[in-house]
């Protein structure tokens, strides 16, 4: 019971930060594309990279949730 709860808690808490940050990354990228539409190609790769970095934090939680 308590380990089940720990898993759920880890995922629930650990996902909040990355969710906010990915939303932020996306919104900032949209904003800058709106300002300068030609830069869309240049923005895409760094945006994907930072999305992956933010996502990795949720994935650490997933690994922890799997291992407990």
């Amino acid at each position, binding site marked *: 019971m308590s380990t089940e709860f720990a898993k759920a808690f880890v995922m629930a808490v650990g996902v909040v930060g990355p969710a906010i940050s990915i939303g932020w990354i996306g919104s900032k990228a949209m904003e800058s594309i709106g300002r300068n539409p030609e830069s869309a190609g240049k923005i895409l790769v760094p945006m994907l*990279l930072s999305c*992956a970095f933010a996502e*990795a934090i949720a*994935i650490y939680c*997933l*690994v922890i949730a*799997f291992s407990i």
Partner: protein
Amino acid sequence: MTEAKELNKINEEVSHEVTLYAEPIAHYGNFTITNALATSWAVVGIILIFSVILRKKMKEVPGKFQNIFELVSETALSLFDQVTNNRKLSLQIFPFAISAFFFILLNNWFGILPLGGFGLIERGEHGLAFLPFLRGGTADINTTLALAVMAVLGANIFGIFSIGVWKTFNKYVNLKVLGGIFTKIRKNPTVIIVAPITFFVGLIEIAGEFAKVASLSFRLFGNILAGEVLLASISALLAYGAPIPFFFLEILVGVIQALIFSMLLVVYFTVASQDHDHDEHESHEEHKLVTV
């Protein structure tokens, strides 16, 4: 009697759960061969064959095959140039980074090959379990940990070769700054406060190296394992059609993770090959400003 047993065996539920650890598929004496290990050997073999063929057929005017790889290496070099700002340095780092990139990329993609359907059915702790022959090598913490240790140790060794043992050592245990207390105290008394702080920052840098290893290895491992879990659970929900978009997602994630790993490797190598000394740098800048 035996027939009934056989039937019983077939009717029993076979679990397809994705495990955190790589499953052993064969034993060679004391040595256990896991499916992740077998996949990484296959990947190494493929890379070897490709590179040997490529080397033999190298021409001044590239064919289709060579053209693809030239395109990939040109793109990679220009990406590295953005990090290093120095063509010579990026050419030195290029072999490490590109081989890590291809190894990780192929490993990520091997995990999601449909060939994962081939495997053994074995009796485990919780009844019958399915052991696939193919499991992406990067979906095993041992592989990613080895890669991460290689990247960080390699960066430090690269730093030793490019700026010398003494300067690399001073990045971590900053004896030079401690010595500076005695030599600079006449000119600048604040050094007695600043120098111990700089020394402790150097010590923190040692912990930072271990953090680098942890984050590199867990990021790669977690992403690929999460992909496998995702695919397994989507297939369990709806076996036909539904997993296809997720397969595309996993192909993309495989490329992105390989790219991230190799870019971070380049960043670590670049940082290691640069001198930490800010004093010299700052005075240089000031000098430039004065002359302008």
